[in-house]
């Protein structure tokens, strides 16, 4: 038997998982999260399971939902890889190598493997908290359930507080719409950059 989180320390918030997506929540006290990549599979016994088809936004959601639950110590990658996007390969690369200064996931073979909404410490936490179990290509639901059961008993909860990923806020830039504003007639224009509809200013000479 593995140790549950004590009453003094919460392994996840009641609102977990914090980021919405195409997943099924199982037992939040389980140690394994299952990513079924491009396959739709019924998974038993995991904390959370679901597909991931993109190498950027999809990967970000997985990281956010995993690091916010200390019980999760393993991510089982299975199912068919999503062609071109390669989110399975990208998750492995993120875990192994992290990101560069531009946010590119180092070593990923996916089409556009960039992290936009995660701070570097979230990625460090992801690398420390979980171990990736690479069974990409496996679609046998019985075998997946067997693996989940094995890994569910292999580790204790991560000994830190749940990590909450807060979306980075950046300052808005004003776009110059130039002469391309939409004329709506009757002296009314729409600034295409801001989508503000306003009356034309008439300058009297």
């Amino acid at each position: 038997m593995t140790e549950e989180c004590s009453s003094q320390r919460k392994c996840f918030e009641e609102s977990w998982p914090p980021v919405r997506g195409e997943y099924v929540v199982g037992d939040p006290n389980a140690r394994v999260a299952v990513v079924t990549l491009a396959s739709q599979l019924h998974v038993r016994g995991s904390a959370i399971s679901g597909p991931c088809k993109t190498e950027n936004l999809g990967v970000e959601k997985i990281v956010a939902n995993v690091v916010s639950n200390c019980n999760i110590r393993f991510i089982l990658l299975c199912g068919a890889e999503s062609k071109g996007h390669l989110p399975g390969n990208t998750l492995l690369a993120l875990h192994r190598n992290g990101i560069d200064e531009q946010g590119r996931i180092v070593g990923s073979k996916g089409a556009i493997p960039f992290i936009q909404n995660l701070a570097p410490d979230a990625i460090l936490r992801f690398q420390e908290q979980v171990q990736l179990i690479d069974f990409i290509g496996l679609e046998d639901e019985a075998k997946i359930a067997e693996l989940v059961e094995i890994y569910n008993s292999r580790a204790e909860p991560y000994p830190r507080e749940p990590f909450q990923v807060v979306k980075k806020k950046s300052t808005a830039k004003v776009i110059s719409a130039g002469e391309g504003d939409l004329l709506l007639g009757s002296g009314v224009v729409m600034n295409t950059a801001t989508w503000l509809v306003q009356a034309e200013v008439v300058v009297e000479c």
Partner: protein
Amino acid sequence: MVNVGGIKLGGQPGENATVLCGTIFYQGHKIVQDEEQGAFDRAAAERLIARQAELSEETGTPAVLHLYARTIEALERYLAFADLTWAGPIIVDSADAAVRAGAAALVSELGYADKTIYNSISVATSRMEAQAIKESEVDSAILLAYNPTDCRVDGMLQVLEGGAAMAEKGLIPLAEDLGITNKLIDPGVVPMGSGAGASLRFSTVAKAKLALPVGSGIHNAVSAWPWLRQKDKATKKCCDGAASAMQILAAGDFLLYGPIENAEFIFPAAAMADILVAEAVRDLDNEPAANHPIHRLV
């Protein structure tokens, strides 16, 4: 305004009807029996393509056949079939960059380059893929303005014009270097919750600033919405039609409307939106084209 295979894309709102692009042989398409070899149910494919053509003729809404292929062998078979069953422009597309690169060479060899739209040139376009486009006769392409580090409107514009950190140059100058004269702009729609709505505002900004045709696959925002998956077909169709109309109202010139089966309800929704836009600008001297839905359906 650009002209691909006799179809006009762009112009002022209310001038040309929105060009509707239905996808066939997409990933998971039930009519495909072997996606590696390109084996498919020919009778079913013919019915789908003919129905898109009928709806285009009935509504006055131009259409493009969007061919998705897993391999170059499959694309070769799809192109041969499209040559027999479809008279208009085509889009060639694959998730695999090597297949897209091969597609550029293949359509040139077969003499289809002048009616082919390459999907797509993006920040993911490698030197190998760019070289294949340059060496081909393809001169029309969708430029995917998706910016993985900044999916706001200004981030997408940076990807197109230059200045986004992850690419050597902007997609517009890159496309021009590769011989692309007909440049179609697509924001690359992300799921709702991740910023899908920015695609709509981007459309009006990009059209105004760049004077290029804009459009999107806003269908993807609808199909990626987990909440909607639990709903019935009628509800899903309603949302798909509404999203399409919103893209048209946001200055859209073309629509990648998703599975070609959706033609049945997307064509009426798009024709309705085109008519409403045309009526909205009637007193601004934006004359609808001769074959515009406003001349056929009302």
